[in-house]
């Protein structure tokens, strides 16, 4: 083969390889973008799950927290005992009882002890009643914050997908552009080169064949074509007189249309 043909073939091969490399580069870039996107979503999902678990744990511990809060509330109210005298020291009750009336004094003491028992019971009951609402309110507020965190994470993912991902994909799609363009240029060059390279090669082959035929007393390649055709009504070699004309033709070297 002629050097031009080799060059053309090399260009075609290099062009094809460059196109493949371009596609590989684009694929790699797209995969990188998608990997980053997947990692972001995965991270957001894990954060969301952690927030949801936090809420679930808060509600799961409601009973223990409720008991603790009830005890706290009961203790808080129980600290305040009913006064038995004014700030000036005047007793509210019992002052009408004579000093000797131990029965009345004991009676008052018993009454106050019973009242304290009733008060304790009242405080405990009210504490228990309030504790549930308190704990559930705290749980709800925490759940609201966690829901907000989950929403914020989802917003981040959405923002990324809407604002950044298209630009990153656009860039990734063009990542192999240099290679692809180089491949296209090489293929174009090879295509332009092809008629000349192939024609030169064919002419060289024809010249070589003609040389060999001359040695053997046979017409050169183009006229051999006429000799070789078995046209109806023509004897083999009937068109051999055209051979000198063909050899002198200005389009010599160009592949013969037949």
């Amino acid at each position: 083969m002629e050097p031009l043909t080799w060059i053309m073939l090399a260009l075609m091969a290099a062009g094809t390889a460059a196109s493949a490399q371009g596609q590989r580069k684009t694929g790699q870039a797209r995969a990188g973008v998608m990997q980053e996107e997947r990692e972001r979503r995965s991270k957001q999902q894990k954060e969301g799950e952690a927030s949801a678990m936090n809420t679930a744990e808060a509600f799961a511990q409601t009973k223990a927290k409720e008991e603790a809060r009830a005890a706290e509330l009961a203790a808080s109210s129980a600290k305040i005992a009913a006064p038995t005298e004014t700030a000036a020291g005047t007793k509210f009750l019992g002052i009408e009882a004579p000093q000797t009336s131990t029965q009345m004094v004991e009676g008052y003491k018993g009454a106050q002890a019973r009242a304290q028992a009733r008060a304790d019971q009242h405080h405990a009951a009210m504490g228990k009643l309030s504790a549930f609402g308190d704990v559930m309110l705290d749980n709800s507020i925490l759940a609201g914050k966690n829901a907000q965190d989950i929403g914020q994470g989802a917003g981040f993912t959405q923002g990324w997908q809407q604002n950044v991902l298209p630009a990153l994909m656009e860039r990734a799609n063009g990542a192999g552009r240099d290679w692809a363009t180089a491949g296209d240029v090489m293929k174009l060059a090879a295509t332009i080169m092809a008629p000349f390279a192939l024609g030169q090669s064919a002419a060289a082959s024809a010249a070589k064949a003609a040389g060999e035929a001359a040695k053997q007393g046979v017409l050169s390649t183009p006229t051999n074509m006429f000799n070789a055709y078995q046209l109806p009504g023509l004897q083999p070699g009937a068109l051999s007189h055209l051979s000198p004309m063909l050899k002198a033709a200005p389009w010599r070297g160009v592949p013969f249309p037949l």
Partner: protein
Amino acid sequence: MFGDGGAKKEAKRARKEEEARQFRVKIGTQETRRKFGEAFNDKYYDDLMATTKAAYTPDMERQFAEASKQLRASLLRAGLGNSQVAINKEEDKAAAHAGAVNEIEQRGIGFQNERKKDVAYAENTVLNQLNQTADMGAAFANASAQIANNTKPPAMPMLGQVFTDLSAGLATQADLERYNQNRYNVFGRIPGWNERNRYTRNVGGT
């Protein structure tokens, strides 16, 4: 080599802007929560309870002292100064005091819970705004305004009369019994006793 039509630059810009937006939202959220958390910490709610008690307790104690005096006067008017009724009333009075203390405590809890809800709502509003705009400055200004609004003391309605029924009915009952009415008949079902002239000596009875 051949250029990418600005895709790389645009991708870089988009990434930078979005990362900056998310950073502002994240930091803004942390800072907003920190501000609210500092303003409305445990001490704030303890102080709210203490304020509630300080607002209501003197009134309650005044009413208690007044009711105690009224009760004593009622018992003395009825001649029941040294009686089981006086002892029973003492028990009722102390229990009523415990109930009043609890009422104040419940009001305090109510104020605390109401404030917690308001604060959570305010914080939520600020953060929603921040999520939408990613404008930290506006969020902080809004947070400060909301905190200022919510640190105002809650409206505390008057306690009302909490010991009104402590001595109610005492004088009436004594008067009725003096006139041989509304007595508790203990022996009415025992053969040989009749209701007109055989009955126990009730409180304030003759």
